[in-house]
């Protein structure tokens, strides 16, 4: 689960990581009120989960509450790379002396947290990593013994952090690591971590990703779940617990297990078709999941044919077949549907389709032939 900047900063504050005073606003009037409470110069920042909002005009400095309101009015509703701005974050402006970069990532490859620190922070950190790698200090941490004081020192010296800031930067790293662990984060990134002209070290941005499997044990994050920038089908799918990503083709695809679904997309493409989506009904798909999945798929009117590709393990083919019939009955879909069922209870499943399915449903025996048939049918229907 990706968090908005303001949510990340709220978590930072609970971990003792210094952040500027700030408030969320969803209307220009709220933005003005927030600016008044904060006092002095403020920054109005679009809350979107996409990079480059500064260049897109989503970050503006306001000298007073009037300006804050005007900026908020301009930014709210803005579309930044497909993400509509529903909230702005108003925070006290900082006088920046230096911009550092600090992050902790769950490194799947090494299976350890990776801490990175650089004195060359700001938006171009990937460029730094690529062209001047010696300026980006990197350190993996043993998950059982954790982040030690010497790790912080090594990183600070090797990242060439200014001497005056070393103690505070190391303290931020220690708190960042503690938060990374206690909050079940996959990523915590501060870019920039600034040194102010009066010598304070402050997190000016916050990019936080929480492990989706761990959200249940963090009640404090329950309110973070809502997200405003999704495709309607994606939102419906997420709310019903199936994994759905919309693509731009016309062959709708429903499978079970991410690997099989990806393979199905590939095979459809090899057969000359264009997949309309990625939809994984889950490894243990039951009839209800299939109904949900079909509802999601059929709500996309670009879909011209449907390929249902199931290989039952925990999933039982007869339950999938029943779900399919239930969904078709309820939704009254008439587009051509190609079904391939293999694995647990495959014969019962095929028999259910053969005996009771409407005429727009055809069964194919192999994944390859099913993909070819679905592509043909989509072309015929187009």
């Amino acid at each position, binding site marked *: 689960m*990706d968090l908005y900047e303001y949510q990340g900063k709220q978590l930072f504050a609970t971990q003792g990581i210094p952040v500027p005073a700030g408030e969320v606003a969803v209307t220009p009037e709220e933005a003005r009120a927030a600016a008044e409470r904060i006092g002095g110069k403020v920054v109005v920042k679009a809350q979107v989960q996409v990079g480059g909002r500064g260049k897109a005009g989503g970050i503006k400095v306001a000298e007073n509450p009037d300006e804050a309101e005007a900026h908020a009015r301009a930014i709210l509703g803005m579309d930044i790379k497909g993400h509509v701005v529903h909230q702005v974050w108003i925070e006290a402006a900082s006088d920046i002396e230096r911009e550092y970069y600090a*992050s*902790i*990532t*769950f*490194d*799947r*490859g090494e*299976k*350890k*947290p*990776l801490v*990175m620190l650089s004195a060359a922070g700001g938006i171009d*950190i*990937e460029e730094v*990593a690529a062209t001047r790698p010696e300026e980006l200090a990197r350190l993996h941490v*043993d*998950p*059982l013994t954790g982040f030690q004081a010497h790790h912080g020192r090594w990183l600070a010296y090797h990242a060439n952090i200014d001497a005056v800031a070393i103690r505070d930067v190391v303290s931020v790293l220690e708190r960042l690591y503690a938060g990374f*662990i206690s909050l*079940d984060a*996959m*990523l915590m*990134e501060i*870019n920039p971590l600034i040194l102010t002209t009066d010598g304070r070290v402050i997190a000016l941005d916050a*990019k936080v*990703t929480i*492990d989706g*499997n*761990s959200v*249940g*044990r963090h009640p404090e994050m329950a309110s973070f779940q809502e997200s405003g920038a999704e495709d309607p089908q994606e939102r419906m799918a997420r709310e019903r617990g199936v994994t759905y*990503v919309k*693509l731009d083709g016309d062959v709708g695809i429903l*499978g079970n*297990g*991410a*690997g*099989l679904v*990806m*393979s199905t*997309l*590939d*095979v*459809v*493409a*090899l057969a000359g078709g264009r*997949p309309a989506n*990625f939809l994984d009904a889950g*490894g*243990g798909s039951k009839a209800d999941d299939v109904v949900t999945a079909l509802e999601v798929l059929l709500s996309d009117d670009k879909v011209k044919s449907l390929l249902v590709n199931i*290989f*039952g*393990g*925990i999933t039982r083919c007869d339950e999938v077949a029943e779900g399919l019939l239930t969904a078709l009955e309820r939704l009254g879909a008439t587009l051509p549907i190609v079904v391939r069922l*293999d*694995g*647990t209870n495959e014969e019962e499943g095929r028999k259910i389709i053969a005996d009771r399915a409407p005429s727009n449903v055809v069964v194919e025996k192999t*994944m*390859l032939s099913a993909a070819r048939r679905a592509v043909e049918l989509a072309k015929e229907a187009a």
Partner: protein
Amino acid sequence: MSILVDASTRLVVQGITGREGAFHATRNKAYGTNVVAGVTPGKAGQDVDGIPVFNTVRDAVEATDANTAMVFVPPRFAADAIYEAIESGVDLITCITEGIPAHDMLRVYTHLRRGPQTLVGPNCPGVISPGIATVGIMPTQVFTPGRVGLVSRSGTLTYQISKELSDMGIGQSTVVGIGGDPVVGSSFIDILARFDADPDTDLVVMVGEIGGAEEEKAADFIAENMTTPVVAYIAGFQAPPGKQMGHAGAIITGSSGTAQAKKDALEAQGVRVGTNPTEVAELVRERLG
């Protein structure tokens, strides 16, 4: 003849009185696996299909000499169950559970890899040595005994490709689903090394997918260490781009992780990569001659 699971396997099923645990323990037993015990705290003395239930894994191991554990408990209790299995002294632990918090697995993994025991999974379909024994949730009718090993990150794709092999008359020595989570107990390399050391495996099929760099590492391992030939499949050429984990993610990942990058890495090391499951089976047949 096989790796990890065979006629000497003595299985204890953790979470055996749950719906899935009972169903699959019974099916594993019916296939011929020696399922010697189950564990559910507080239910010692009961039985499931004749399999005796114990309060703790240690009790089960002491009473039955189990050497393999299968974890079927819910995600938030799964790390504890794996630790319990480790401390009980079993050689192999297979964790089927999906949805375990990544940080839990990070600690489990770090601890486990400092000892001699093997973990397969989590979020995996298990291990089957066709005709001999199965530990997990695989649909056993798909598999046939033979001399081709298979290792895969994906469950259903494992079944698909095994079925393609079986349909072509090519049997399997052992089929291993290593699981698709960020942290799994056994990597491609771990399993490839075991197949390479198995005199009864003539060829290995490796089934990968987008994300991470495990297939790329495996490509190097195959070239440098293996004598047994390998045929590969990679899923996800058409997959939507995965989300980037901030700048940090981009810095770590670089250009690796795409299906094309994985295919290129494997082919650069002389590993043939099929474009679809059927073609993979054809490449295997061709290679076996």
